[in-house]
Structures are given as C-alpha cells and as structure tokens.
C-alpha cells in the first residue's frame, strides 16, 4: 500500500476526539463572547482611582502593546526600563499588589510581548554588529550591554514562576489535589497565577530561541499537554506552546512526537477558524499556521507516518508539489528542505552582546541552527530511495541493488545502516515531555546475511472497528 492509500484508508482517524473537540470549540466561542463582557466591566470599575493608579494603568497597557515596527533604539531602551519597573513593582512590593488588569488576556500579552521585544532586540543588535554600517547605533549598543540582558529576562520569568508557586500548584493539580493549598499568598491571586503560568510558556520559548531544546521541553514538566490545560484558554498561548514544543521535538530528532504536536494544534485551529476571523491576532496565527504546515512537511518526509485526514489534505493543498519532492529525497530535495526550514523556524537569537569591532564574526544564529539541522538532513537523504526499493523485494542481493542504484556496495551498506538507525525513534509515552521509549517507526525492516538483504514488512491488519461502528450508527 502506498502512503496515500494508507492515509485515505482511514478517513475518520480524528473522530475519537470529536466530543472533546466540540466541547473546546464551544468553550472558545464562550471566551470570545466573554471578552466583550469583560471590557464592559472594566469601564465601570476603575473610576476614581488616584493619578498614581492611572500611571500604572498606562504602564500596564503599554507592557502588553507591541512597539511600532520602526521604533528607535531609544524607544526600545525605554520599553525595557518600563518592563523593569513594572516587574519590580509586581515582584518586590510589600506583599502582593492589587492590580486591575486591563483584560483577561493581559498576563499572556505581557509575557508574549516582553519576550518578543527581547528577541527582536537581540536580533537587531546582532544585525547592527554584522553589517557594521551604523556606527552611531553600534556605539549606543556598546554602552548599554545590559539592556535586554539574558540574565534579567530569565530572572523576571523565573521570579514570576517562583512567586506564584505555579509549579507546586500544577503538580498538586496533577495529583488531583486542590492547588490553592499550595498557592501561597501570591499564587492564590489570579494576577500572579496567570503571570507565573505564562512565564513557564515564555521560558519554553526563550530556551528554544537560544537553541536549548532539551531544557525547553524540560520547563513544561508540570504542564500536561492536553486540551484542558490552562494555556488552551488563550488561543495565542495555546498555539505558541504547541509550536515551540513541536519544534523542540523536531530538533531532538523525535519527528513522530513533533508531528503529533503540530497536528494537534492545526486540527484545533482548523475547527475554530470561523470564530477567529476578524480577531486582531488572526494574521499572526495564519502565519504560524503556515509555518507549522511547512514543519510537518519536513517531519513527514524524514519520518513517513500516517497523518490526520484534515492535516493531510491541507498539507497537499499548501505544499503538494514540494511535499512530493521532499518525500522523494536525494540531493535535489536539499535546497527545499533548507528553504522550508528557514521560513518556519523560530527567530533564533544570540543572548550576549556581539563583537562590534569584528563584523563577520557575528553569524546570524538562524544560519547556525539551519546548518546543524541540514547536516542531519544530508546524512539521511537516501532513506526514501532505500525504502522505495526494498518495498519491492523479500530478499535482495546487496551488490545487485547497488548496481540498480549505481553506487558502490560500501555506500549502500552505509545507507542501509542509516535507514535502520533512523527508523528507531524515541516516542513519548507519559509524564515529562523529555521521556519516551524507543519504537520502530517504520513498517519496513530488514537484516543482512553477508550480502543478502532479508526484507520484512509489518502489515496492518484489517481494521474492523471503524467499519462496525459506522454501520452500527447508521442502522441504529
């Protein structure tokens, strides 16, 4: 059976989770309406506040608002100072502060924007150093090495996590206990709880941007990846989490797990997209959506697997021809792998001030990570070729096959070893995202007896339950 046939043979693979999915869609619809109610509420409450609270309100609003695209360095510095004083106020006042936050999504927006500004600042600084053209800005950046420093950014995120005791709360929830008993003075307040929670997601993102993929996954130890998780209440957070978790898995060569993550969120988006249209985050989500399809295309090419039906047809529509080229493998596919990877990877950063006196040394971190990923792609480039040939035989002489492929027998032995190695992958089972067990990810297996290749195939038996259930539903 070809890959396509296998996919189409099970059109309702996603059906089992229908009920849950439906509930979420409703939940999301409620949220959208709920938001309107909230803004109404806001307008009526914060009357009569002293001027100090109004300043604070302005600061709170500013913290969650994106900077203008063309913001000057001064604005970026000022924005950093604004965050510093705001977080200082929240974290270091006597006891927890009583804040009216502008909206339900505020906590997410603040953390999201905080990290985004850190990311774009680091990238900007690196670019100034690399081009070496703008001496004035370089000088200004040189004089302020600690602005948007990685230690201060991590410090904010970790402090918010610790203050809110959010990890203890989440661990309690996992055990089925009352999180409030572990929340403490700060963590029992929604403001701190939400900030703490989204800081965990923020850390996931920061670690991933820094190229520390295992630590990125480790930070989510206390969060359960399912639709009932708190991040699922805020669409952008939900989306971001799955993107970075999936990407980290991909960089750890756990393509099966990466595909699972991307598919999950893309199915969710496709079912809720009607409510998002017109929302202000719609464009950002649409862009990330395309990026994740590109990543799924890469993962599926490196690790053929059966996809959810919705995902599969959307993927065909968006990347049909490219997907074919990726799946065929060989040197022709290399530029395409690189192009898709570059278009879909996070904007990696270098956390420390660059060397302004030595422009060429400041290599773009995106180039660095692309080169590392492409090395693995190059090493496994002939896996599709091997698989397509071996599928046709039960036994085959190695030298004969080498003749078909027009390569040296020694080369073919290497390819066979690589394909065998890469078809074993670690797959998540339960608990922490970093854990997993080794499974054979391929239905094709083989062993060599000197130069004789014995091929075996794992066949899927007939699937009767689907058929039975569908007919039962029709008759009954």
């Amino acid at each position, binding site marked *: 059976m070809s890959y396509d046939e296998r996919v189409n043979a099970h059109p309702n693979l996603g059906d089992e989770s229908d009920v849950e999915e439906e509930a979420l869609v409703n939940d999301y619809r409620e949220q959208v309406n709920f938001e309107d109610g909230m803004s109404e509420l806001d307008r009526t409450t914060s009357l009569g506040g002293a001027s100090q609270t109004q300043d604070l309100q302005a600061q709170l609003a500013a913290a969650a608002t994106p900077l203008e695209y063309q913001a000057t360095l001064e604005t970026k510095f000022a924005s950093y100072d604004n965050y510093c004083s705001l977080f200082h106020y929240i974290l270091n006042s006597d006891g927890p502060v009583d804040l009216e936050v502008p909206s339900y999504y505020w906590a997410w927006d603040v953390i999201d924007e905080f990290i985004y500004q850190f990311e774009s600042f680091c990238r900007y600084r690196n670019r100034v150093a690399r081009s070496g053209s703008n001496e004035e800005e370089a000088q200004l950046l040189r004089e302020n090495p600690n602005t948007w420093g990685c*230690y201060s950014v991590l410090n904010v995120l970790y402090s918010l996590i610790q203050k809110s005791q959010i990890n203890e709360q989440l661990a309690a929830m996992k055990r089925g206990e009352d999180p409030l008993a572990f929340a403490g003075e700060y963590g029992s307040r929604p403001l701190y709880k939400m900030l703490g929670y989204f800081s965990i997601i923020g850390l996931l993102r920061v670690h991933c941007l820094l190229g520390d993929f295992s630590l990125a996954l*480790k930070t989510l130890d206390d969060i359960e990846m399912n639709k009932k998780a708190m991040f699922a209440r805020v669409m952008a957070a939900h989306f971001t989490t799955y993107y970075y978790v999936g990407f980290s898995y991909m960089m750890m060569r756990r393509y099966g797990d990466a595909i699972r993550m991307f598919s999950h969120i893309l199915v969710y988006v496709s079912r809720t997209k009607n409510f998002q249209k017109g929302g202000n985050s719609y464009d950002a989500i649409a862009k990330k959506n395309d990026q994740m399809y590109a990543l799924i295309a890469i993962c599926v090419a490196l690790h053929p697997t059966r996809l959810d039906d919705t995902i599969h047809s959307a993927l065909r529509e968006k990347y049909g021809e490219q997907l074919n080229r990726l799946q065929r493998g060989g040197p022709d596919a290399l530029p395409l792998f690189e192009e898709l990877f570059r278009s879909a990877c996070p904007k990696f950063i270098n956390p420390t001030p660059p060397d302004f006196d030595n422009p060429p040394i400041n290599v773009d971190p995106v180039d660095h990570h692309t*080169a590392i990923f492409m090395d693995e792609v*190059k090493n496994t480039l002939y896996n599709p070729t091997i698989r397509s040939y071996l599928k046709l035989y039960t036994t085959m002489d190695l030298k004969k096959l080498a003749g078909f492929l027009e390569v040296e027998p020694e080369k073919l032995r290497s390819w066979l070893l690589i394909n065998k190695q890469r078809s074993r992958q670690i797959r998540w089972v339960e608990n922490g995202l970093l854990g997993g067990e080794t499974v054979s990810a391929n239905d094709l297996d083989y062993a060599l007896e000197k130069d004789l290749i014995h091929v075996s195939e794992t066949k899927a038996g007939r699937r009767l339950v689907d058929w039975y259930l569908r007919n039962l539903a029709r008759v*009954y």
Partner: protein
Amino acid sequence: MVVAFDSCETRPAGIDAILSGLDRYNPETTTVFQDYIVQQCEDRTFDCYANLALLKLYQFNPHLLQPEIATNILVKALTVFPSPAFSLCLSLLPAYTQPFPSESESQSAQTSDFVESVQKLAHLSSLLESAQYAQFWSTLNSDDLYADLVADVAGFEELVRIRIAVEVGKAFREINADILEQWLDLRNREALEKFVIEVCSWEVENSANGTVIRVPTNKENEARSEVKSERVDFDMFGRVIRRGFEQAA
C-alpha cells in the same frame, strides 16, 4: 523501557541538585560542571543533560568559555552516536564556530584554533552519523590534531568501536570479516577475533571463502514479518452505548 533525556544513572546528587535549581545559571557553578566533564572523560560515562547546562553557561558568559572543555564535551558526544547529542551541543556553541562551513565560508573566515577544532569534530560526527565508518577511522588517523582532540577522553577509540559494533549487530546476521575489519579499524585478524568474541560475544566462522562473523539473533536483526492487529478499546464503543441508553430513556 522509558528513558528520560534529563536523567543519568551515573550523575552525582550534587550535580542533580544544581541542574534542577536556578544554580544552573550561576557562573560560579561553571567549575563544578567542568570538573564533572573531566570526570566523565576519565571514567567513560556520559551525561548529556549536564554537559548542555555547562555549554549554556558558556553561552551566557562567553568570557568563561574554555575551548578544551567545550571540545571535550563534543568528543564525548561523539561516543554516543547515533543520537542527537552532538547536534544539541553544537546548537549551544557560539554561531561563529560555523561547524559546517560552506566552501566560501571556510576560505574567507579567519579561524581560531577553537573554530578549527569544532569544525573538525563536526566532520567526524557527520561521518559517524552517516555510517561511513571506514572513512571515520581514516580521517581520525590522518591528522595529529585529531589525536590531540580525543586525547583527554579515556578509551575514545574503544567506545566508538563498541558503538559501531552495536549498530552492526542490529542490522547484520552475518558479516564478512574483511568489512568489519575496516569498520572497526582492527587491521589485525587476531585483534578482530578477540574483539568480536570477547566484547560482543559473536561467533567466528572460518571457511574456504574467507572468515565470516556471525551475530546471534537479537530483537533488531531478526526482521520478522508481522501483522499488526487492531487495538480495540472499550472507550471506542462509548458513543454507541451512550446512544443506546439515550434512546431507551
């Protein structure tokens, strides 16, 4: 069997405590991690997650970076192929190391010893990850610089040899001694036989057509055809059963 990337059987409790707390970012712990990697080099253990923490400290505090320690981490990561360990380590190194330089880059860039070492080790890693074992050994033996790089890692060659043997054992039931000789870089037939019998517990069979090494059947090299049958859970019938109740009511 479930394996977790962040755990390591041979990791001392003190290191574990640092890794799970905020001290993993404290520049003062750099020396602790450095001692730990020296220890790993000596006693032939490997703790990827802890080594990544050290590389992260270097990433945050570039002035602390010690080239020999960083390259030792990479050499240790070579001994656990095939695995993403090596590339995860590379990801945390400064981008200027350009582990896989394009031709124009390798000509134009002014390189330091550190950059050259990283690039040389990255090349070795590519050879191992792409199963070109004979080339790996010839490259390793081609330049004294390689010998210097792996000098600190006790039993480097032995460790790589064992990894290669493990991979061969997964794919082969029988293999010609001539090929294995090159892959393991054991040019002397006696040494090869000693290694496969004593270390791998494989069998050697001499015949008129040359020597063949026989690998006993294991889970990976039997390549059995099987039919995967469908898993049926009670939950799958939840809807049908619920419907039955709803209609009855």
